[in-house]
């Protein structure tokens, strides 16, 4: 058996190619059903996100579909010409495929390292495969190991700790300034796309008092209604700032700055110099940079936040080495299990054969005058112990053989022992007859 991965991702193909091969949930279900019918006895899981389409399969080496056949099947399932996309496809076998899944699941292969969305997507992909019963012993173990490895990486490294988006950094800053961010008043001046993104981030932090103030009342109302926050007319902006802890500038002035230093200074004296965090996400900027000199005012432009986000990405990348080390250990552990997994039934057969030989020998011994000997019970248990010990020695040898020389060598050795044991059994049977 071998583990096969066929895939395409943001690193190997442009969006135009990826979108042709993308699967939605319904298509994933259909494809899994048809794959199971077309290639019975194999295991399949299909992962499709905006950045990647990947099919994980466990197939028989001999007699099963080849990786190329699988790749062609998948591409043609999406009614795409195989030859046209073949240069963007990657095929990985066994250890490479396992390493790839662990890397993908722990987000090390994502556009933004440390984002947790991909882990949820891999979990969803596995869930759908389980529902369609297209996973088996190998894929179950593989995906569970991938989730465990991801958890280990998140716990032991800081790749997922730091915020890497502008809105995320703004929220982190607010948390460094205010003890209870949930009860802080947030005023968003402007109802554009970035304003809305920040509304979402602050609501995610469970901020209870978020107010949107927009020049166009209608647009402000729409945004407020959509997210269940308060809306105020533009004329009320200064009044809202008097109460605010966090002010997000998401609306520019036609010319110059919307907020001059004097305007903020006057507002600050009215608010008795309570700390105010200002996040200016507009270009051109709507807050005079000199405002930063005012006592207890903390002003950050989009560039400041973007710089921090960039620094955080670099810091996350700094932990990459440690994460890769964890992945390598997990891959080794999985492959150890995978290569010895096929030898398991052979070990059972060896034990069975040895037991058979023991029984034959016992039968030969307890005949005639020895038939009713009182030591039979004692001798049987003693022989059983001998067989157990011999079996243990053989199994340990096979195990180390598979680790040192590969599963094939170990299998060959195990089959040799079984053949010899069977020969002894058949000779014994002939003699008895």
């Amino acid at each position: 058996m071998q583990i096969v991965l066929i895939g395409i991702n943001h690193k190997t193909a442009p969006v135009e190619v990826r979108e042709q091969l993308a699967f939605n949930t319904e298509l994933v279900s259909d494809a899994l059903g048809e794959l199971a019918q077309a290639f019975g006895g194999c295991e399949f899981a299909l992962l499709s996100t905006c950045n990647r389409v990947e099919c994980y399969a466990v197939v028989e080496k001999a007699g099963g579909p080849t990786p190329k056949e699988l790749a062609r099947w998948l591409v043609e399932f999406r009614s795409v010409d195989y030859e046209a996309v073949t240069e963007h496809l990657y095929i990985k076998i066994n250890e490479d495929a396992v390493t790839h899944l662990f890397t993908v699941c722990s987000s090390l292969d994502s556009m933004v390292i440390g984002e947790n969305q991909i882990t949820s997507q891999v979990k969803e992909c596995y869930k759908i495969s389980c529902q369609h019963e297209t996973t088996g012993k190998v894929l179950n173990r593989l995906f569970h190991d991938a989730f465990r490895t991801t958890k280990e990486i998140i716990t032991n490294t800081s790749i997922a700790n730091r915020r890497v988006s502008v809105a995320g950094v703004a929220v982190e800053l607010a948390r460094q300034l205010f003890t209870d961010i949930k009860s802080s008043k947030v005023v968003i001046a402007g109802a554009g796309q970035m304003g809305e993104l920040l509304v979402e981030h602050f609501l995610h932090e469970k901020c209870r008092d978020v107010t949107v103030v927009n020049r166009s009342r209608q647009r402000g109302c729409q945004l407020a209604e959509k997210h269940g926050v308060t809306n105020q007319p533009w004329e009320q902006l200064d009044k809202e700032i008097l109460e605010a802890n966090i002010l997000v500038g998401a609306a520019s002035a036609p010319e110059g700055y919307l907020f001059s230093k004097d305007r903020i200074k006057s507002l600050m004296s009215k608010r008795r110099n309570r700390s105010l965090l200002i996040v200016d996400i507009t270009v051109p900027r709507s807050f005079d940079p000199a405002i930063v000199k005012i006592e207890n005012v903390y002003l950050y432009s989009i560039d400041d936040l973007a710089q921090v986000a960039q620094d955080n990405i670099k810091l996350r990348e700094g932990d990459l080495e440690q994460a890769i080390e964890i992945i390598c250990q997990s891959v080794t552990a999985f492959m150890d299990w995978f290569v010895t997994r096929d030898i398991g039934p052979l070990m059972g057969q060896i034990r069975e054969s040895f037991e058979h030989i023991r029984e034959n020998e016992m039968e030969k011994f307890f005949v005639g005058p020895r038939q009713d000997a009182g030591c039979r019970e004692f001798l049987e248990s003693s022989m059983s112990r001998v067989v157990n010990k011999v079996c243990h020695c053989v199994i340990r040898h096979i195990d180390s053989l598979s680790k040192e020389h590969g599963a094939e060598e170990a299998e060959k050795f195990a089959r040799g022992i079984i053949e010899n044991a069977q020969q002894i059994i058949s000779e014994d049977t002939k003699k008895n007859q």
Partner: protein
Amino acid sequence: MFDLLPVERLLFFGILLLSVISSILAHLQIVKSDVKFSRLLVVFTSVQILLAGGLLAMRAVAVKAFPMSGVFESMLILMIFIGISFLLLSAYLKQIWFVSVTAWMLLGVNILAAVVAKPASVLEETVRTPWVVVHALSMTMAGAMIVLASTMAVLFLWSQKRLKSKRFVTLFGKMPTIETLEKLNLLGLRLSFAAMTLGLISGIGLIAAKSAGLGMTLADWLSDSKIVLVAVSWMILLVTLVLRRVLGFGGRKIAQSTLVVCFLILFAFIGSKIFCKSDHDFEIKSSTQSRQVE
């Protein structure tokens, strides 16, 4: 430190040693960005408090009274107050910088205690009144509160500088919020002001009751360096708190005032002993001397 009795020296050496180890661990915490030594620091601080308490108890037995005349005793009580406040706060503030800076602050206090360490002394018979007990305890309490407020002020100013200069990444998760630091700084300042006010009132009560017996005139009192420094500190605290209430004086100015007052108070406690003349102690002789007399 070398004037102390052997047992006292041993106990105080233990305090200093623990304090130095705590400071090294505090430094390692910051270097490694890990709070794994925090529990150990809490244990070490608790042991330091116990040792300081034991040292004070030994001195109380030696002079057969509550030991309050010496600066060394005051520094030990100061250390105990700061230590207990740290233990209480550490349940809520677990950030690396808070724990580490407090450990360094304790080391500073212990080093100052080592500088002024001397054998136990007894109070002059004239001043042995309830006034002096209230005065000594409230002034030490005021000192402890101002040292704690200063710790918060230092952290606040450093945090604010990093935030204003947009180099704030290092603060995330390692420093208490600006709001918490400002609140604790102000709380320390208010408690210190209240304790100092009580200390001043009890001091004035003591003067009114026993001035003649001490042989000091009003001019002597008003020109005593320690008293002048404490009075100036009290005035600064008063002005700061009034301006805060009336004009909404902000965190930075409060923090700066705190540091000035802390310096003045520490100078009044220790510096006045070394650099200026002060008749404020009212001690007659050391315990060793008194034992020799007996």
